[in-house]
C-alpha cells in the first residue's frame, strides 16, 4: 500500500524548479502531486509521478540528485476536519509524521494526503484498522 515518491535536491537558484518540470514534461511524465520544502540555501522537491523509474533516470541524466522514498497516500473527503481526524488516529497510534502534503482530486470531491512516516508499515496498519482509505500507486496515478 506504499507509493513511491521521488525527491530532488535543488539549490535555491532561480529556474531550478522549472528545469525539473521541463525535463519531466519533455519525457511525457505526468506530475500527480508536488511539494517543495526549502531552507535559505537549498530545497527538496517531492514528486508523485506516473513513471517513477523513467522520471528518476531523466532527472539524473539532467544532473540532479534524485532519491526515492516510500510514502502513504490517503484519501479523505474534502471537507472541514478531514485532515484532523487522520492526524488524531495517527497521534493515538504513536506514529510520527515526518512531513505531508495534499492535493485535491479532479472531481473535487476528495482530497489526497501524502504522508511520510518514521515507521511506514506501522502507520499503514493503524490507518487500515481505523478504516481509512489508502490508495495504491495505480489508483493514485489514475485519479
Amino acid at each position, binding site marked *: 500500500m506504499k507509493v513511491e*515518491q521521488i*525527491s530532488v*535536491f*535543488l*539549490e535555491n537558484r532561480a529556474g*531550478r524548479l522549472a528545469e525539473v518540470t521541463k525535463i519531466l514534461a519533455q519525457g511525457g511524465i505526468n506530475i500527480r502531486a508536488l511539494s517543495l*520544502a*526549502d*531552507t535559505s*540555501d*537549498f530545497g*527538496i522537491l*517531492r514528486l508523485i509521478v506516473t513513471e517513477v523509474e523513467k522520471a528518476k533516470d531523466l532527472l539524473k541524466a539532467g*544532473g*540532479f*540528485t*534524485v*532519491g526515492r*522514498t516510500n510514502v502513504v497516500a490517503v484519501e479523505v473527503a474534502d471537507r472541514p476536519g478531514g485532515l484532523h481526524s487522520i492526524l488524531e488516529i495517527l497521534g493515538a497510534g504513536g506514529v510520527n509524521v*515526518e*512531513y505531508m502534503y495534499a492535493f485535491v482530486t479532479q472531481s473535487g470531491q476528495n482530497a489526497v494526503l501524502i504522508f*511520510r512516516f518514521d515507521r511506514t508499515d506501522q502507520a499503514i496498519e493503524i490507518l487500515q484498522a481505523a478504516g481509512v482509505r489508502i490508495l495504491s500507486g495505480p489508483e493514485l496515478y489514475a485519479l
Partner: protein
Amino acid sequence: MLYDVPQETLPRDELEALQLRRLRQLVDKVYYNVPFYRKKFDERGVRPEHIRTLADVQLLPFTEKQDLRNNYPFGLFAVPRDNVVRVHASSGTTGKATVVGYTARDVANWADLMARSFVCAGGSRRDIVHNAYGYGLFTGGLGMHYGVERLGATIIPISGGGTRRQVMLLRDFGATVLCSTPSYALYLYETIIESGIDVTDLKLHTGIFGAEPWSEKMRAEIESKLRIKALDIYGLSEIMGPGVAMECREAQDGLHLWEDHFLMEIIDPKTGEVLPEGATGELVLTTLTKEAQPLLRYRTRDITRINAIPCKCGRTHRRITRIQGRSDDMLIIRGVNVFPQQIEAILLETQGITPHYELILRREGSLDTLEVKVEVDEQLFSDEIKHLQRIESTIQKNIKEFLGVTAKVTLSEPRSIQRSEGKAKRIIDLRHS
C-alpha cells in the same frame, strides 16, 4: 620485526646525542666545502661553532628547491666529483631538473635505510618483491631495488608500464610484496580482473606505496581489493629517495622518520617559524649523514605533523602523519592556516564518504569568510530537510572544532567540476578580486 634493532630502538637521549654529533660534523663540512652554504652562513653571521644544541639548527639557513636549480647541476656537491658514484634527478615540470649526487657510502646508507623500511612494512628475506616503481633518474625504482637486495629478498625489477605483462609475472613469479604508487596498484587490480585472474591466486601479502599523495579511503580500497596490508612510504630525491620514513606494520598509524639520518622540523610555511611538536605544518629536513650533497633545513613543501607518542612496534624514531598536502596549497583564513586536505579529512570523517567540495574564500569588510560547498550526491541526499541540515551543522561544527575556523557550509547540486585525480580546482579565492 626490526632490521637494525640497536639503531631503531635507540633511547631518545642517545638518539638526540647522535643527531647533535652528526649535525655539528655536517655544519663544519658544508661550511668549508660548499660555497653556497658558506655564503649563507656568512650573510647571517653564523659560524659552525654556534651550533651547540639541536635547537641551534634554527640558526641555519633554509634550503629551497630553487637553490638546487640555481646550482644546477653539481654546484651543491660537498665532495670532489670523483667521489660521486651515482646521480639522480627529478624531472622538473617547470624549469631545470633538480640533481642529487651520492657517494658510495650514501648509496650504502640508502640501501640500509630502505632495507630497514622494507622490514618495517613486514617484509623479510623470504619475500619476492614486484617493484613497479620506475627505474632510471627517478629514485623510486633503484632506491627500493638496492634495499631489497641488501636485505636478501628477491627483487623483480619490473619498473613501470606493460601492465598486462606485469599481471602475468606477478602471478607466475608468486610475488609477495608489491611496490608501486597507490594509483598504479588500483590500476593493476583492474588489469588483474580484466585478465580473468582471481586475486586469491596471487601470493601478495603486503604493498608498499608512495611517491604520490593518497588517503585512508584509498588504503581501504587497495587492501580490500588486493587482499593485502597497504603501507605508506615517504621519501624525496633531494633528501635521498624512498626510505626517509616508513609506516610500521604493527601500528599502521604514521611513518617512522629515520632520525639517526635525518633531523626533522615542522615550520609555519608562511613565516618559517618552527612550530611546537604536534602542530601541523611544513616538514623541513636536514640530512645528517649525506656526503655527496648534504642539505640543511630543506623545505619539502609537504604538510604533516610529528607524532611523538611511543609506538607499539618499539621503534623510538618519531612518526610523521600521512602527508596531508603541499604547503603551496595552504590557505590563511583570519590568521589560521588551513589546508584543503584537512577539510577533506573532516568531510570524510563526518560522512564516511568524500563528497566533492569547493572552498570559496571571500572578504567581507576586513574579515575573511570561508564557504565550504559540498555536493549532495545520492549517498548524502535525504528527502528530509532536517537530515540535510544536520549534515551542514555537523560539518560546520567539526571544522570549527578541528581547524578553529568558522565556515559556512552550503549543500549544492552536483556540478561538472573537473574530476581528474586530485587535480580538481577546489579553491576559489575571491579575496583579492
